[in-house]
């Protein structure tokens, strides 16, 4: 199964990143490729990819007994994103593991690119929120 892992630091405290990660309605603000989100039920939401307003993709968001871990899995493509946060000093380390089914292997590089960019945006948005607050 094709998969990859990425990490990025954020100067924002962990709670700021946590709020963005646990609130699917905020995903379009930082997750590359997600244009809009509709929350359907606890742990379930539908996202529309950027540029595809007629292409709803149901998603599951599952929290975990492991600290700060959130799994988002696409019900259409079966691509799974496991996010995990750790406190590092005053900031946060953001880690993500992505796995794709074999039939989606051709999207591996694209996903790697998008997720890398998403990590940067998530870290920056959390910092911005934090900075906004502390300004």
């Amino acid at each position, binding site marked *: 199964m094709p998969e990859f892992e990425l990490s990025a630091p954020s100067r924002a*405290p*962990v*709670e700021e990143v*946590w*709020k963005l990660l*646990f*609130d699917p*309605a905020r995903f379009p603000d930082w997750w590359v490729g997600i244009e809009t989100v509709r*929350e359907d*039920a*606890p*742990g379930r939401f539908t996202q529309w990819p950027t540029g595809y307003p007629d292409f709803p993709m149901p998603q599951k968001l*599952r*929290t*975990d*007994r*492991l*600290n*700060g871990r*959130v799994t988002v899995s696409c019900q259409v493509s079966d691509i799974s994103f496991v996010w995990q*946060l750790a*406190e590092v000093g005053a900031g946060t380390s953001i880690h993500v593991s992505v796995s794709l089914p074999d039939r989606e292997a051709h999207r591996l590089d694209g996903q790697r690119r998008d997720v890398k960019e998403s990590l940067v945006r998530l870290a920056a948005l959390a910092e911005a929120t934090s900075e*906004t*607050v*502390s300004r």
Partner: protein
Amino acid sequence: MLQVRLLGRVATERNGEQISLPAPAGRLLAFLALRLGPHDRENVAVQLWPDATAAAGRANLRTAIWALRKALGDDVLEASRTSVGLLPGTVTVDVDDCRDRAAAGDAAAAAALCHDELLAGYTEDWADAARQRQRAQLAQTLAERSASTERDGDAADAARWSRLRCALEPLDEAAHADLIRQLAAAGDRAGALVVGRDVITRLREQLGVRPGPSLRAALAEARGPGAATSASAPGLNRPLFGRASQLRALAAAWAAARAGQGRVVLITGEAGIGKTRLVAELARRADNAGAGIAMGAGVDVGGEAPLAIWQELVPQLARTVSAPENANWASDLGRLAPDLPAQLGRDAPPPVVSSPELERLRLFDAVLRLVEWAAANRPVLLVAEDVHRADPASMQLCAHIGRRLAARPVLFVLTRRDRPQRPAADALIADLVGRGVEVTEIELGPLSQAEVAAVARSVADLPDAAVEQVVDAAEGNPLLAVASARALAAGRSAPPQDLRAMVRAATGTLPRPARDLVEALAAAGRELSAGELAALALPDRDEAEHAILESGLVFRSGGGLRFRHALLAEAVRADLGEQGRRYEQLALAIESAARSPGPVAAEVAGHLRRAGRDDLAGPRWQRAARHARSLGAMPEAARFWAEAVRCDPGAAQPRLELAEALGWLGREAEFEREWQAARELLSEREQSVAWCRRGKVLRTVVCNPRASIEAYQRAWELLPADAPHSLRADVLLGLAWGESAAGDPDRAVMLLGEVARLVDPHDDSMVAEMANAELMSLLRLGRFDGCETAAERGGAAARRAGRPDLAYSVWIHLTCALSWSGNMIGALRAADAAVAATRGFTAIELRCVASRAFVLSRLGRHAEALPLGREQLAMADRMDSPAAAALARHDAGLIALEAGQHESAAQLLGAALDEDAEISRPAARLARAEALARCGRPQEASAEVRRAALEPVRAGDQPWALVPRMTRVQGLIALARGDRDQARRRMREAAAVWQRHLHRSTGAEYMANFVDLGRAPVVGLVEPERELRRLTAELAALDDLESPELTEVL
């Protein structure tokens, strides 16, 4: 009119003609005639066929009803799917008539009741319990008549009634004291003294006890001034040598306990060092002070029945008390000894609940209440000897009682050997000390040479040289000193080398029948009662008893016999080897002499195992397992079921039971293994039953609704076409419950409709279960309007069925539904109903109290809510449950936060988090952060918010609600720092998130919360509208900096 005679030989006649009935039908008629009107069919089947499986019991009952109806016709018997009974007005019963006449003052009727045995020839438990009830009722009637005639000044007539009462209860000291006093008052002083002498003899021979204070006082009064005498207590015929300092410590502990500062004493020492003798000395002093005394000992021979120590202690203690009024706990004690409820004035069986843990807690609480009741008017001495041999459940109950004595006049003495190590005993003491219980530890070391010499001289008039030999041989051990002295007094030239040799020397000269008897006593490892000795059916028993009493190894205790010391029994047992026949004979004697087979089943089975008779042991292990289950002792129940499986590995039923017991213990892998093994033994037709039972374990014990759906679905697929309606209904109900909890609630509603077509509408347990599943479905569907009707129906059925566990579910679901729909007054009514329905069942009552407190808090009735938090804590303490205590602190913290008691809230929530309460940890941390911010401690509040973000999050934590809650708390922290801009920004951000969640359907989260946190989400309910209203008010106050309301709102 049908006439049923229950006094003497049971008989039935109509119009003077005797009606002949087959035995099972006759037994059923006798049972139903004890109380006219409907009886629950399940209960009747269990009572009449206790050893049959549930299905076989029901089938037996159906056959007996058919036979009874055939013999009596249709006009007297009323039977439905759930009940069966004799119609009042169509039957007369002699015992009812006699009872009424006796109560009206008819002495002849009372005498008939006294002299004719109720249900003569019926030896079953239910008949025995009926006799106990009858005796207790009659004793009460006689006591009342006697008291009333004595008040009227007719002492002779009062004595006539008391004499009947004494005939009924020949060991009742209070009755005899009354009779002695009345005879003396009527001028029959000689008669009074004869009564006194006789009862004292009976008490000594049958119970091995001295007369208590009331009897001694009555006798002293009858003898006249200055005539009181004192008698030495049994077992105290030799003085206590040495031990002055230990006795002082013991006396000091007793004095403190008598003064109301209850405590525990632990006496430790090697075998034979004198622990029992020291305790006997204390008991003598306590008896002189009028204390209630109860003594029990651990036994590790046989099958180690659970709560063995307490099966000895509790009946003794119950004999020292009068019947309490309105005490449900007295019914629960029937699990330990079936005749106790009647003795304590209760005739109703305890209600059935489905969880062994609840059963255990109720039993523990009942024993605690008995101790409290016994200690209400006089001091109490409890003694648990040889706790190094005690079963785990006995130790658990020792700890439960020991922790709660601080404010009561109770001294609890435990004795143990110093070797081998017994970690459970160490843990018990460490736990008591850790909880601040006053514990006095007394170590008994060797006696000095002078003291041993004194012991030797007290045994026999030995020359100095022989005394020196005893001193050398005993090495400071008084038991060895006594044994050595006896050997030398018997003519031996030197003491035997060790105790085993001493015992061998003593038994070697015994004639064969006496050796048989001493070996049987040793094999038993405990005292054998007169009934058990008789049941051994040994030849020349009188001579044998005389011989072993003469040997000095054994003494008479009441009507029975016991070894002077456990070490002596162990020495004989060591020489016994594998004498299978001896153990088999002993097992069967113990069983045949038992008043009820359940409490002795494990012991009997253990002896049969040792005898190599697994064919006989198997059914006894099953009975022992059922008895252990009724005590809530699941580890023992599992162990006994495992033994039953070992005895009959090809039987599926014990394996299924074992699997279920393992499920209760949370041993899931073993549950799976045994369940699978059982299934392989079942025929194709029986597979459905196995899957149905699996479903029940998964939906109740394991609380895995999705897995239970799969099991029930499989049961449905395998259901034979001619499966009984009851099985079909069980499967469909299980499926409906699973769907309502974790599947498709619409399908659940449809399935419940199917169940309704199959079950009797008067089957209250089923009706309550159905209402419960219906409520969960309605909650998940957000259809709150139908909930009240379903709950009223289910709550009433649960009450009628005596199922507080079901009543709890029903009323708490309704509390949730009404809270969610904003009807807090209705929610309070439902919470009140929940508390009322579970009163006395602490483990579930506590949860209902928590819900009630939360609803009151939501209504702003803080003054009523806050004390309930303390009540919750007190209940948790009574349950001995750190988890419940932690939960109670969490709930109290939330209530304190709502009430504006922020320091208290921060402290309580912090403690709950530290104690790892089963709560939503991130939500609790955010609540604590709010409390800290409002206390003006923003830095600590920030740290708590950070910890909240690092907590594991489960579905039941409702993560969608954590985000805006966290943001609002960040706003409060900013405010505490004086940064109003930042506070305003955070609060607006939070309000925007809550705005998105308005009108959110929370039904699906309801069950996630239930499964994750183990309780309905009344406490900590998430209400987006309310959160938004609060934020709006807080923002408005912030926007108006000069607002005088600012401080109040924020």
